[in-house]
Structures are given as C-alpha cells and as structure tokens.
C-alpha cells in the first residue's frame, strides 16, 4: 500500500446540529415561505441535507419591508460606533463557530474541508472584522464628510463561496448603515441559514439582515422589488446583464461581480516550482468554481513542454474525493447542471481539436465529480479558451513576447483577474499596467483579503468589493451644503472649489441616479 494512500481523515459531522427544515429569515425570525420548498443536497453524495423554504414575491416584499422598517427605525439612526460593535460581535461568533460553518459549507457545497476551514470561513470572520472598524469612520471613506447610506440593499450571491460571498455583501453594507435582504444560491443555502442563527445570537436588531431562499425567480423578484435602493450581485455575466437591464431607469445602484476567463501568464524566467503551484491553485482551487480562476494558461512557448510536463506530474498528486476528508484537494462539482456544462464544454474542446488530459483518478460512485483536466494545443479561437467553464479545466496557450501575452490576455470580453509569473520586476509592473483586469496577481494567485478591492473590467462587471472601495459602494456623498458646513467651510468659496472639496461618489463604476446627481449640482451658469 502506498504511503500516499493516506487513510481517510474525515472531519466529524457531529459538530453540526442542523434542522430538518429551514424557513426564511425575515425580521429576525424564521418564517415559512409561501413558495414550494426545495431540498438542499450534498453534491458529493446526493444525500438530502435539509428542506429549504422558497420565497415567493410576497415573501420578498415582506423581507424588503422588514429591511426598510429596520433601516428607518433603528439601523440608519444608530451610531456608527454601535453598528461597528454589532459587526465585531458577528465576527467573533463566526470565529467561535468556524469548524461548524466549515463542515456545513463543505457538506452543502462540495468544496474540500481544507479550503472551507483554511480559506472561506477565516476570511468570513476577517471580512466582518475589517468592515466593523469602518462603521464609525465613514467620513474617511473617500466621499467627503457625512456620506449617506443608500437604504435597503438587495444582495444575490452564488454557490461557489456561499458564506464568503455573504460576508462580502453583508459586512460593508451594514458598516455603511444599510439594511439587507440577501438571497443565497439555491444549491447552497445552508451556511447562510446558520449565519441567520448567528445574527440572532448577536442580537442584531430585527430586519437589519434578512435572508430569503429560493431559485433565480426569487432573486429576480428581489432585484425588482420596490423599496430596494442598491443591488449587489455576484454570479454569471448573463444574469448580471439581465439585472443591469432590469434596473435601468430606476434609482437603484448596482455592484456586479460577474464572470471571468483569467489569463495566467508564465514567462520563461518564472520561479517555476512556485508558478506550477500557482497554476494549480489558480484553476483547481475550489474545483475551478471561481470567477477569477486562472483558466487560460498563457505560457511562453520555449518552456511550454516543460511546464505542461511538470503540471501533469503535480496534478497526479492531487487527491479527489470526500470533501470532508482533510486530505482532499479536489471536492465535488456543485451540481449536476454544472457538471453537465463542464462536460459539454470539455467535449467541445476535444471536437475543436485540443488535446485533453485528465488526472487518472478514481471517481466516487455517487455525487458529481470531474477529474482535473488540462487542454493543450488550444488556440485562441476555441470556445474553451473564450468561455467560462467554471470547473477544473485548464486551457493552455502559448505566446512569444510580452506584447503578445498581453494582447492574448486582454482578448476577451471579460476582465476580472490575471496572473503574471516572472522574476523580472520591471516586466511585472509593465505587464500589470497593460492588463485589462481588476485584480492582478504577480507571482501568486487567488489571494483574497478584506482590505483589498476585488472586481472586474468590461463584462466582468462593475463596482468593487473589499477595501475602502467596497465600502464606498454602499454610500453616497452628503448633499454638498451639509458636507461643506460639517467640514467647516463657508459658502463664499467659488463653486469650483466647493465642488472639489465635496467629491461626489467615488465608487468608480456605480450608476449615479438623476436624484443624487442633481443633489451634487450647485449654482447656475447664467
């Protein structure tokens, strides 16, 4: 028996005390949904985990109303200091229940426990800690003094990082003084519902956070709901596009984190062993269910064969299997639908003429699985080099010069992330300058931090999450007069100067409503 065939080291499920049924979390309480409930299953075994309520339009309206009430009556009136203290409480509670949340996440999502335990959940706590500290410092968010919260935020999140995406959405929204209605993905509602219990333990005022479950129609109803001031969505570009159309002409502002087809560029002077790790981490982290995954490997032609050979060797040490096993590197594909899409696009890759290589590994009988796969001999025109596969599938392309690498990297409607691997500092900075992507990892990949803005160019969406920029996405500048007065400035200054001292919305890509735009206008030309 091989030493590498480590005995299974499953994380205990005993730490979980799940309910058999979960309702909607509205106004601080779990209530029944009026839609037809659905089951959430474990994608690694297809076993049922729990029954989940389904919010219909009336439920959505109730949740938005609860959020509005909480906004008007408590949250918007509360001091930043106290809002911050609530967020710190939540951060601590997440830390206390880290193991439980990690197990639940791996169970419901299929991701390896080592990722939910070492990446997802610690980042969730970090996100709340980071934004907790912002709550009473909003004057320094870059929008001038006394920035205003927006009101009720409708937040729709995906299934790839269920709890982490929840934190990315809720933490800055609450810190800025908004209340939220959040809808987790249909296939991964579990940790959001455990999080609702945490909200109760934190004694957060009812209605500040509402969590409603359901499918795409629930999300669409939420985005469309009257009384929503801000929409924050992470998911596919197709749905993001639909949301942008849906809210056109309204006063709703939007942050959209959409798809990607990131180039991971490896130059011939790259730190090769670390680059191999970065390639692996870039595309096989979370089974490749990552919008910023490095799914296009652009490798300098003169080291192509060596890189592919090393990559294959490295991949053969990856362990695919039970997500709750601490030694698992590659967990389950989140759903049957996703698995089918991965299969379909991979088959297209073969039909297009690319060479497919998959890790020879045993695939469990039940559940949804896809062996880590590399496509070589991929041309830029192939669909597998252009479309987001959202699975453990890497397309390898080559380039000859830095300019060609940049051109190929940018040759996509997406622009979320990119990787650069080279030992040459000046090249890193110059290439980083020219890549049209919101996050550039140089000699590393797939790193996340609450202080670091994340978001895309082009069809990867707009707005940023994380950092000061992510906070600004939930704020608007104070009306000019108030900001100027608070800042101790008189009205005698010329218009230009006044405008300059009360910078309007710093959020780089959010839409500005006619109302807020008007409020930023002062004086007359004639």
């Amino acid at each position: 028996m091989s030493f590498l065939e480590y005995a299974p080291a499953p994380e205990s499920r005993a730490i979980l005390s799940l309910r058999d049924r979960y309702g909607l979390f509205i106004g601080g309480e779990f209530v029944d949904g009026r839609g037809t409930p659905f089951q959430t299953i474990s994608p690694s075994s297809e076993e049922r985990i729990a029954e989940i309520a389904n919010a219909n339009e009336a439920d959505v309206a109730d949740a938005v109303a609860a959020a509005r009430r909480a906004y008007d009556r408590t949250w918007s009136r509360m001091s930043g200091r106290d809002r911050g203290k609530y967020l710190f409480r939540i951060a601590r509670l997440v830390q206390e229940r880290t193991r439980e949340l990690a197990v639940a996440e791996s169970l419901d999502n299929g991701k390896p426990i080592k990722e939910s335990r070492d990446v997802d959940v610690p980042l969730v706590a970090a996100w709340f800690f980071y934004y907790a500290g912002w709550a009473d410092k909003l004057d320094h968010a870059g929008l001038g003094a006394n920035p205003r919260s927006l009101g009720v935020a409708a937040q729709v999140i995906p299934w790839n990082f269920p709890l982490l995406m929840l934190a990315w959405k809720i933490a800055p929204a609450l810190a800025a003084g908004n209340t939220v209605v959040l809808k987790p993905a249909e296939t991964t509602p579990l940790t959001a519902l455990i999080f609702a219990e945490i909200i109760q333990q934190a004694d957060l005022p009812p209605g500040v956070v509402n969590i409603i479950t359901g499918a795409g129609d629930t999300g669409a109803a939420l985005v469309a709901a009257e009384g929503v001031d801000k929409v924050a969505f992470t998911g596919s570009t197709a749905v993001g596009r639909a949301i942008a159309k849906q809210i056109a002409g309204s006063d709703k502002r939007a942050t959209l984190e959409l798809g990607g087809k990131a180039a991971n560029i490896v130059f011939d002077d790259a730190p090769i062993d670390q680059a191999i790790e970065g390639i692996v981490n870039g595309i096989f982290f979370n089974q490749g269910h990552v919008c910023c995954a490095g799914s296009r490997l652009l490798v300098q032609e003169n080291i192509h064969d060596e890189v592919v050979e090393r990559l294959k060797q490295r991949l053969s040490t990856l362990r695919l299997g039970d997500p709750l096993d601490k030694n698992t590197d590659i967990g389950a594909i989140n759903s049957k639908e996703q698995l089918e899409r991965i299969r379909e696009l991979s088959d297209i890759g073969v039909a297009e003429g690319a060479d497919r290589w998959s890790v020879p590994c045993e695939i469990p009988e039940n559940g949804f699985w896809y062996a880590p796969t590399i496509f070589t001999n991929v041309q830029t025109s192939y669909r597998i080099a252009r479309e987001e596969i959202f699975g453990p599938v890497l397309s390898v392309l080559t380039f000859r010069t830095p300019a060609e690498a940049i051109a190929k990297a940018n040759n996509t409607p997406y622009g979320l992330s990119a990787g650069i691997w080279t030992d040459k500092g000046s090249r890193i900075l110059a290439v980083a300058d020219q890549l049209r992507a919101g996050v550039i990892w140089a000699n590393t990949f797939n790193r996340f931090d609450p202080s670091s803005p994340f978001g895309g160019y082009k069809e990867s969406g707009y707005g940023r999450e994380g950092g000061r920029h992510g906070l600004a996405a939930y704020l608007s500048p104070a009306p000019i007069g108030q900001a100027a007065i608070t800042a101790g400035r008189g009205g005698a200054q010329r218009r230009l100067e006044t405008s300059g001292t009360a910078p309007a919305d710093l959020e780089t890509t959010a839409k500005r409503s006619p109302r807020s735009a008007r409020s930023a206008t002062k004086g007359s030309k004639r």
Partner: protein
Amino acid sequence: MSRLAVPKTYKLYIGGAFPRSESGRTYEVLKADGGFLANAAKASRKDARDAVVAARGAVGGWGGATPYNRGQVLYRIAELLEGRRAQFVAEIEEAEGVSRAVASAQVDESIDRWVWYAGWADKFAQVAGNANPVAGPYFNISVPEPTGVVAIIAPQDTSLLGFVSAVAPALVAGNSVVVVASERFPLSAISLAEVLATSDVPKGVVNVLTGSPAEIAPWLASHSDVNAIDLVGAGDLDWISLEIAAADTLKRVLRPESGPDAAAPALGRISAFTETKTVWHTKSLR
C-alpha cells in the same frame, strides 16, 4: 464698405480629421431668433462607428501617457481657449442669444474647468487609489485606470460649458471619448474641436459628432467596443432604452442630469470612468 464675411463650414471631428458626415447630410443650425446660423454635419451611425474606431486606437497612447503629460495637454487646451476667447464669446452670443456678459461667463467657466481638471491628472490616482494592508506577505496596491472608450451625450442646453464639463473629466484618467454635441448648439463644440486639433491632444482622443443624439446615441449605447456611456445630456431621449442597450456589454452608465449646470465639476465624474485595478505581489527577504 463692409467686408463680405467668409462663413465657416462645420464638420465632424474624428480621429484628428474634420470629415463631413459619410452620409452627406447636414442640418440647419438656427440662431436664438430663428434665423439661419450655419449648416452642421448630421452624423450617421457609420460616423459614430468611425469615431469609436478612432477612439479605440487612441486610448492606449493617451491612457499610457504619464499623468503629468496628460495634465499639461489638458492645461494647454485652456491656454488655447483663452487665446480664442473672443471667438467663442461671439459664437455663443449668436447661437444662444445671450448677452456678451453671459456668454463671457460661460467661456470663462469653461476655461477654468479645463484648468481644474488638468490639475487633477497627476493627483487623482493618489486620492482614488491606496495601498491595501493585507494580512500576508504581499505588496498590494489599488490604482484607478481609464475605463477605455467613453461615449458622451453632451448636455444639450449650452454650447460650450456643458460640453467641456462632460468631456474634460473623462479625459483626465486617460479615456478617449466620442461626444455627441448639443443638437441645438453644436457650433462651439466644433470650434473647440479646432482648438483640440491644434493643441497637443493626440488625434482620436476626442471625437465630436454633431447631429441628432436620438439617432446616434442608440448606436453608441449598443456598440460593443464602447466601455462606458455618459447620458448626462440624454434626459430628453429615451434614455432608459439606452441604458438597457448599454447593459448588453455591461457598460458603465452615468444617468442623465438636468439643471442649469449639468455635469458640474466633481471628482466623481473622473472616477465614474475609471476602473480600480488591484495588484498583488509577494514580499520576502528570503
């Protein structure tokens, strides 16, 4: 005996050249009292297409120029405009039917806005960007970068001020623009284009279309190679449809503004057409 004046032919400004509309169309621009003022080119969708191509070609050079350089180029516009102040004042008086004092104020304010925005060019990134103190051995910095090609429906109620107020901030970060001028008051925009053509602004960075915003805007809003659209002057159009069309390629959209000083100076007008790029790099002594 008075001299017979030589009237100017107003054309489009695309890629640094002054072509007529490829459609051959013009429309009559009238004085405030209804009298004939001039013929302006009536741009077609193909002119819009050509303008986008020119803008795309220019964005790399302009966005890649140093902010100091961009600031100087923008300041140079103010200098040139100051030198031709009388021409613009006269043009506005005639077109808008306002007093010399009002026209002068508009020109002065326009010049001063170029100056204000020129000064932002090498400061904006310091205000909009920052280092991020991540929990790990990484250098991490966020910087604003130009969004790319920005289409602008200029404010419709002024000849020069609205046009400048919308165009200048988009240029600060390094975008190139395709601007649809005020339909009623298009002449100053073309005169400004003549200033730009003799300034240091690289060709293609600013492209000016005159004609019907209602006709041209949908082509720009739906054009895949346009990254953002400023609908500031589109209030009288079916701008919701424009926003919906823009959503097809997830364009950044600024919604219409009304009021006497639409597109008033604000840092937000610069940041609206930037993308925050965050760069990570490992740090180690080993």
